């Protein structure tokens, strides 16, 4: 906290500022694959995310990013190590977190509106109130005209945005987002990114953001961490992004510091990906 006050305008949460929202301490994760030795997806590794901190996770495909989010969400029990959420050891599901899954996770039997509204109703919000808020959120993600469509009547990007609204509408203190903007065009990505940043700025959420778009990661985050190629993936790089806030996600890409950071991260990442293909690429 003491360092935070010295810095430029608002909302800069640095690694060493504020209490811990999520702490993954030396967690390792394995999968039992029938008829094979246990697959050690994630080797003992640690990651700490402070309250109000926006952390992006990048890494080669299949390294273990989704697995890490699953463990933070409490959906996967790590084979070793502990997960703490706001100082408390996580048992069962992480009730403080909202999770936007990499796969489609909408309920196919509910319309877009109901899919978003249910997230509020679960918490006890009255039905009409929930629907009104849900409508507002669907408008924000650009789906005002699609509120009463069932998921199978939406395009891939539209479904993803419904999922986004579903998670954000609840206002969770911790946001776990697994390639949330993957199937969106560049322009929509920026709009959604801005939306997310505004929200984040309002109430000091902790965000763990998985993406393959390094520019996006840098533009949005306080920190970018790099995972090594699996199996036994670990976090091998941790880059604080010291760009001023608030940021314009489009303009910031013109900042020379942005390019410097990009190059540094990219070089490490590239080396890592090449490792995956080391013996395998044609």
């Amino acid at each position, binding site marked *: 906290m003491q360092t935070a006050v010295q810095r430029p305008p608002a909302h800069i949460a640095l690694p060493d500022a504020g209490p811990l929202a999520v702490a993954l301490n030396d967690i390792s994760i394995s999968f039992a694959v029938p008829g094979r030795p246990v697959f050690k997806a994630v080797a003992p590794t640690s990651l700490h995310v402070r309250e109000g901190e926006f952390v992006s996770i990048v890494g080669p495909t299949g390294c273990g990013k989704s697995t890490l989010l699953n463990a933070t969400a409490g959906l996967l029990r790590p084979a070793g190590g502990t997960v703490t959420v706001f100082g408390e050891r996580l048992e069962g599901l992480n009730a403080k977190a909202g999770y936007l899954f990499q796969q489609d996770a909408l309920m196919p*039997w509910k319309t877009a509106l109901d899919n978003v509204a249910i997230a509020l109703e679960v918490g006890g919000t009255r039905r009409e109130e929930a629907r009104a808020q849900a409508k507002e959120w669907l408008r924000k993600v650009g789906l005002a005209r699609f509120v009463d469509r069932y998921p199978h009547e939406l395009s891939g990007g539209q479904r993803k945005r419904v999922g986004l609204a579903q998670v954000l509408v609840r206002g969770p203190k911790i946001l776990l987002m697994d390639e949330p903007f993957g199937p969106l065009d560049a322009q929509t990505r920026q709009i959604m990114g801005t939306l997310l940043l505004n929200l984040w700025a309002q109430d000091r959420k902790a965000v763990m953001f998985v993406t393959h778009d390094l520019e996006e990661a840098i533009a949005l985050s306080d920190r970018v961490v790099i995972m090594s190629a699996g199996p036994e993936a670990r976090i091998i790089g941790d880059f604080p992004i010291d760009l001023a806030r608030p940021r314009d996600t489009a303009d910031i890409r013109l900042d020379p510091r942005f390019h410097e950071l990009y190059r540094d991260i990219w070089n490490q990442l590239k080396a890592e990906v090449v490792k995956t293909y080391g013996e395998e690429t044609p």
Partner: protein
Amino acid sequence: MHPVRLLFLQFLVALAVIGIWQIGSTVEIGGDYLLPEFFFSTPVEVGKRVWQMFASGMIWKHLSITLTETVLAFFIGSAGGVVFGFWFARKPVVAAVFDPYVKMANALPRVVLAPIFMLWLGLGIWSKVALGVTLVFFIVFFNVYQGVKEVSPVVLANARMMGMNERQLFRSVYWPSALSWMFSSLHTAVGFALVGAVVGEYLGSAAGLGYLIHQAEGVFDVTGVFAGMFILAAFVLVIDWGVSGIERRLLVWRPQPAADHG
């Protein structure tokens, strides 16, 4: 397909069946009847008898009793199947412990149980309902149990992350997801509910379609037996039609099967 064309085709099938039946039971082929009248009656006779039953009005009393039993057996049995199916699916320990007993119970010949139902429930409709319930229950139970376990893991994880409690999960995830499983079993169950009611009446009663069929059987009145079965079967269609209606309403969200022009 155009509904008129469909009706026409269905009518053709009925015509073919009735035609074969009429010929088999009245025309001698190679010195023998294909469907001897003593065992099969003839469609004309059966038709006449059905007509008489309705014309004289005597059928209504029996029909209403059997229908009441069927509907009760169907609802109680399905409700039980749904409740236990969900309960077992959500409590793996309960399921594992009771699994062999459920399967044993499912294999008991209900005909033998009839005296016990009569002992407990008397001779009224309830002993017949009980017999129907023991058939319907298992059919629905096994399907709902499996249906709940087939819920998409991602959708389930998402719902749990929203903080749904067990009741909310049931309402918003398990129930809608298991619906198509449930309805599939309900189509079978409708028939079995009726079978249960009729067999119950057959084994001991003073009225109902099963009673009529039993009476007719004892005196070789095959026409009466077939007339009774025909009325039964026709009524099942009415109930099933209701089930399908509810199914259509509850499953509006499903994608229509792609207009398969391949």
